[in-house]
């Protein structure tokens, strides 16, 4: 593993890898080492390239270097009553083996969002700009710090979720938002089917919903917004108030809740309106029914087929290495799309040195 502190170090490391055709794997806090395909190549540890570069609360943006811990960013935002509305996970628990927790670079590269995603948007919805070092060592600046910018192709959003396969994200600018004035959580006893029915019905109404979590016969619903609106929605929806709600949502966001435990976990993304699936092992559902977690022994191909038939896709989110290696983490792409992915990979990384196989085994 090589550690880099400055932009020049990053560029030098990539140039060297490029020149010698050596695979390289950008890594922030390592909190998502478990996610995606297998890890290949020397780790390029970016945790030393850190620090908030610019933060202007009234302009609603924050720019930081890749290695900046999310914890530091969120603490800074909280002082001004602001937040990262996509609620990306930190995964800093010692149990996950990553004490530093998520960094900004890894957050953008993985694109994983938290409980507020369905209402507020995903990580990619908040990315305004990036400084990217491509696979040849070129420094590229895309996007910027303003809310609207349609000059050129939107590379800053495009690289979200690319898992280090297109370039090293050296710096990123995110849109930030004010924290809601008020929040409340209500709980309902119900089956999965009832929860889905209600969530889809409520989702079509102007209610200040900001998160949902169903697990083991209980649906938790978070409401956020103006104090009067939250109070009115609570009255209308009923349910039981929840004590220590913030800690409970934290456990969902950080996946320290028991629902996410175990060596094998499937992440199924679906249209919210998809009815309960014919699949055993449902652990929890989030995002108004758009995200469902399963721990199932069913054949991977069968899990993927069930998800696809419901209009979604299944990710082998956490699994033993042998299984991940054989099945790949992400739903396979149709041939034409795969070919396009390969061409796009070449645009940024002609020698294929960056995180090979992390997204798909084919590139």
């Amino acid at each position, binding site marked *: 593993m090589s550690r880099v502190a400055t932009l020049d170090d990053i560029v030098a490391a990539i140039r060297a890898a490029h020149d010698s055709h050596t695979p390289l794997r950008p890594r922030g806090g390592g909190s998502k080492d478990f996610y995606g395909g297998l890890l290949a190549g020397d780790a390029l540890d970016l945790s030393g390239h850190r620090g908030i570069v610019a933060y202007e609360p009234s302009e609603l943006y924050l720019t930081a270097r890749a290695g900046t811990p999310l914890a530091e960013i969120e603490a800074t935002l909280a002082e001004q009553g602001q937040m990262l509305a996509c609620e990306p996970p930190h995964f800093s628990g010692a149990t996950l083996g990553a004490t530093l927790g998520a960094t900004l670079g890894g957050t953008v590269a993985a694109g994983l969002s938290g409980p507020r995603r369905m209402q507020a948007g995903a990580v990619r919805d908040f990315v305004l700009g990036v400084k990217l070092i491509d696979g040849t060592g070129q420094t590229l600046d895309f996007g910027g710090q303003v809310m609207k910018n349609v000059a*050129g192709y939107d590379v800053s959003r495009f690289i979200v979720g690319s898992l280090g396969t297109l370039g090293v994200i050296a710096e990123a600018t995110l849109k930030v938002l004010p924290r809601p004035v008020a929040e409340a959580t209500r709980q309902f006893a119900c089956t999965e089917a009832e929860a889905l029915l209600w969530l889809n019905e409520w*989702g079509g109404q*102007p209610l200040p919903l900001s998160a949902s979590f169903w697990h083991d016969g209980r649906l938790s619903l978070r409401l956020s917004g103006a104090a*009067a609106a939250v109070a*009115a929605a609570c009255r209308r929806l009923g349910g039981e108030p929840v004590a220590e709600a913030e800690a409970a949502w934290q456990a969902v966001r950080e996946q320290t809740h028991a629902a996410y435990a175990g060596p094998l976990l499937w992440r199924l*993304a679906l*249209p919210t309106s998809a009815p309960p699936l014919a699949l055993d092992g449902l652990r929890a559902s989030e995002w108004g029914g758009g995200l469902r977690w399963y721990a199932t022994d069913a054949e991977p191909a069968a899990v993927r087929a069930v998800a696809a038939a419901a209009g979604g896709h299944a990710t082998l989110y956490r699994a033993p290495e042998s299984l991940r290696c054989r099945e790949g983490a992400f739903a396979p*792409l149709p041939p*034409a799309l795969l070919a*396009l992915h390969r061409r796009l990979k070449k645009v940024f990384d002609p020698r294929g040195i960056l995180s090979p196989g992390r997204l798909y085994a084919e590139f």
Partner: protein
Amino acid sequence: MNVVPPAARGFRQCLAALVAAYNKPMETAESRSEAPFATDRAALLRRLQWTLPAHGLLSAEEDLRPYECDGLTAWRQLPLAVCLPENEGQVIDVLRCCHQLGVPVVARGAGTGLSGGAMPHAEGVVLSLARLNKILRLDPTARLAVVQPGVRNLAVSEAAAAFGLYYAPDPSSQIACTLGGNVAENSGGVHCLKYGLTVHNVLRLRVVSIEGEVFEIGSAAPDAPGYDLLALLIGSEGMLGVVSEITVKLTPKPELARVAMASFADVGQAGAAVAAIIAAGIIPAGLEMMDKAATAAVEPFVQAGYDLEAAAILLCESDGAPEEVAEEMARITAVLTAAGAGEVRVSQSEAERLRFWAGRKAAFPAVGRITPDYYCMDGTIPRKRLAEMLTAIAALERQYGLRCANVFHAGDGNLHPLIMYDASQPGEWDKAEAFGAEILELSVALGGSITGEHGVGIEKINQMCVQYATPELETFHRLKAAFDEGGLLNPGKAVPSLHRCAEYGRMHVHRGELKFPQLERF
């Protein structure tokens, strides 16, 4: 609201354009695009006749004329033919045919674009998606609609209204512009500060490549696997593929919306009020600003009740549950008053709210009534630099001897200066264009962008050289080639060649050293 499709543009405007064309050699498509194409017109038409029904192919000059420009009327070019497919299969056939013959293709929606994105290529065809105009599916439970690219923006919200839903991005051209055009430009509207741009509201696309291959990208489920191709395609100005189907997210209609109208004696104060609202932790549903020249143009046209003495007015909307709107409006009014607003009026009824907005939404046509021609700019800047930008624009008005009315999506720092000129006066368009270029380059110098929502098209192709350096431009070209190796889709638009930038750079350097020497550099 009058959004006039080019086909129906008034006699006066056509005359002005003709006179202008006579007075100066118009810059044509080729003079700005580099790639040489030489199409065998007869062979092309023969092939297209096999591909399309007779009423789906136009080639007579009088039929082509309505397609010679988009909303940027100063740029015109006749295509060799216009194709009007009626289904995706015909779109595929047209693209295959053009690919085989090496013929440029310019996709077109309603032609309301303001950067010349849909302006034809002299050696190419226009591929109009206007007849693919069906809403294929509207699913109120999943809150989404599947539509063909030629469906008008407003038609989606109209169809969804029965379910208490709507499509959030609302460009002022929404009665005319198509979803395909919205996707290609990543269009915004007056409510995108809170509800996002097109890129935040599109879930899935079907895209036909120049080779006639169909890609499904994105998904009705969140986080589609693989690279975020939606992000790449949205805002790509018809350069990467032709969008043949769009799945959009529908949003529940808020129970109530009210708008506050505040007058300011000073534009600097109005700019500071915008920052103060955001700093107070409020994300209004809309936050718009108009200067005195804009309100003066609008008021006689729509009688919105604007304060004509004010140097600038702000429109600030709150929406949501009635309790929420009441709570937020009280905060908004307090912030506006503290920021020095002379008068704050809050709409007391839906009719009044619509009247306050009518002026803003009709700003372009209203300005169009007081000047023979106007040129709409689209830079974005950090909000805090609004006052600085307005001062600079005032100085440019004097320098060029042209008036400019200013309309802003202030909440997200997106400016629409409307430069007034008369195309029938020799040299006026050149002056207007140079004036506009200075505003765009100043936007970049202030830390912003040359385009917030109208796209680069042909119009801002030179300013791309100012916003991006060679490595980024080269990456854009390689991205384009990954989709369209032969460069047949909308050639010469959106991304300048390095050769062009070198030329533009030379022109700029010999004129003087750094532009805007008074500004802090970024």
